[in-house]
């Protein structure tokens, strides 16, 4: 079979399996069984399938994934997040679209603790959205910023998906984690500016209000910030610092961060055994979903390689005279389109076997490429029909909110994400300057 027939067959079957609504992991398994029988040597191929499944996730570089997710879950289930939101709310006053701005700032702080975009979005959505809607915020103004900053969580370390990208693409995980910081912060700043401009132009979108606790001043205004927000940023400093100083690998600093989060919750007297268990169960669920897809998709990637599809496609791209920019833009376009339909983990496992040889061939700087990849992937969290955060928002929003409203709320922030992609494309230091300064002394 020629390489294009093989790739058409494998990807075609996979698309059909996905469309039937079968869980993503099982779609891969089903195709793998047929593919392993055909390309990995019949009976022996199927035994190899089982071995591969176990080996694919027996990997030290993947262990930060559950740890980073645990940090966010602890923050959420212990109620520490609520206190931090309250503290930030006291500081931000007389700003148009105040609560939306608070959501973005709080989301940025949580991004620095939580390694899971789903946890951050669910956290802000369930804690802040009801209040915003009650105060007469337009659904777009209330939901959009929350989802947008949830997506940025993927760029700001700790981030489970960044770990996976580094591990699969063979890019330094600590460099990638640090590389996401600047683009993430710039995006958050753009969101705040947009909210303020919109709310100023049309105050009906975000009615202003005054409250007793807004009247506090001096120490009372700042105390909650020092008590509830500064310790959280210290956790972030521990995670990044331990990595940058070379004391700990990403896995180890992730574990340190998770334990630090639990300790902080205990110091606030917010830690109950039941909330810790809830956080651990939430972690098991989110990381279980991610890792189970890896079990299926890793073998799929191997079968693609054995069928000749990988080499065939990579060679075809190299021989066609697209030029390096053409290829890079093509890759980003593929990620954006895939992001509309499939989840981030499947996306990485499907594309990286093709992309990484091309990255090497054209000599793209790996950290820069990795950050571009992250931004493109982060957009997939917000693009309909299958944006993970859109569904997360729908599941925590009040019942009367339709999925259509959720889509509309996310739209402007998708455009800003695209803008960010272009900025980093044209200006690589935004991605790779900070990792150089911090990690290469």
């Amino acid at each position, binding site marked *: 079979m020629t390489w294009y027939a093989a790739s058409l067959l494998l990807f075609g079957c996979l698309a059909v399996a*996905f*469309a*039937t*609504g*079968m*869980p993503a*992991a*099982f779609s891969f*398994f*089903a195709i793998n069984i047929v593919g392993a029988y055909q390309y990995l040597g019949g009976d022996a191929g*199927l*035994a190899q*399938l*089982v*071995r591969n*499944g*176990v080996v694919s*996730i*027996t*990997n030290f570089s*993947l*262990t930060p994934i*559950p*740890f980073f997710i*645990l940090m966010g*879950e602890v923050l*959420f289930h212990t109620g520490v997040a609520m206190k931090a939101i309250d503290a930030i709310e006291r500081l931000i006053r007389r700003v148009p679209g105040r609560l939306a701005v608070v959501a973005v700032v709080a989301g940025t702080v949580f991004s620095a603790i939580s390694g899971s975009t*789903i*946890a951050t*979005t*669910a956290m802000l959505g*369930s804690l802040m959205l009801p209040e915003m809607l009650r105060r007469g915020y337009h659904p777009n103004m209330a939901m959009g910023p929350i989802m947008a900053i949830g997506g940025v969580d993927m760029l700001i370390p700790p981030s489970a998906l960044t770990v996976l990208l580094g591990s699969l693409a063979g890019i330094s995980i600590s460099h990638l984690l640090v590389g996401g910081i600047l683009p993430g912060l710039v995006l958050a700043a753009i969101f705040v500016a947009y909210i303020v401009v919109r709310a100023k132009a049309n105050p009906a979108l975000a009615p202003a209000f005054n409250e007793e606790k807004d009247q506090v001043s001096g120490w009372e205004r700042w105390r909650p910030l020092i008590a509830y927000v500064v310790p959280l940023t210290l956790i972030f400093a521990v995670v990044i610092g331990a990595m940058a100083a070379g*004391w*700990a690998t990403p*896995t*180890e*600093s992730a*574990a*340190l961060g*998770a*334990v630090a989060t639990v300790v902080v919750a205990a110091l606030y007297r917010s830690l109950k055994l039941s909330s810790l*268990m809830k956080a*651990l*169960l*939430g*972690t*098991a*669920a989110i*990381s*279980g*979903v991610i*890792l*189970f*897809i890896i079990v299926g998709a890793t073998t799929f990637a191997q079968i693609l390689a054995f069928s000749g599809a990988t080499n065939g496609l990579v060679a075809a791209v190299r021989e066609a005279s697209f030029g390096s920019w053409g290829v890079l833009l093509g890759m980003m376009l593929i990620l954006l389109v895939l992001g509309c339909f499939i*989840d981030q983990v499947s996306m990485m496992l499907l594309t990286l076997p093709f992309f990484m040889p091309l990255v090497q061939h054209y000599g793209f700087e790996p950290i820069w490429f990795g950050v571009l990849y992250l931004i493109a992937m982060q957009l997939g969290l917000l693009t309909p029909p*299958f944006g*993970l955060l859109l*569904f*997360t928002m729908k*599941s925590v929003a009040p019942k009367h909110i339709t999925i259509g409203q959720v889509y509309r709320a996310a739209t402007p922030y998708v455009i800003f994400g695209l803008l960010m992609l272009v900025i980093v494309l044209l200006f690589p230091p935004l991605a790779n300057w900070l990792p150089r300064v911090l990690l290469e002394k």
Partner: protein
Amino acid sequence: MKRAYHLLMHGCGVASALVIGVVVLLVTCDVVARNVGLGSFPWVVEVSEYSLPLATFLAAPWLLYKNEHVRVDILLTVLPVGVARQIDRAADVIGVAVCVVFVWYGIRVIADSMQLGSMIIKTLVFPEWWTFVPVPVCFALLAVEFVRRMLTGSGIVSGQLGSQ
């Protein structure tokens, strides 16, 4: 019966959560001990590696039971309910078939590895077949859950993501 099944599935989730909790503690102890000069425990790295498949294969049946595995159900929601149900049932049948293959080959891989006496020799030394045991157990439970979905039609109710 129903309650026992619920407990079994929930138990899988709790076990997976506890595995993660224990490994977090182990890794933390290791890094702290090393940096304060109490020496390091080289086996911790290996234990945390093997804990990932264990936690994942334990969580998978529980996640299917809760309908939390990521899936693209956009087509099912736009099709007429009758057609969607048919497609969903077909997906369940494929699910059972996949599980049967994994259970069968999982057992065979274990048997082969036992027969050859393959050992994993790193810091920890143990028989290789231990690492494959979660596979047939996980997929047997998954098969049961797929059959249950097929009989009750519970898969069609779209699952919600996240930790709630």
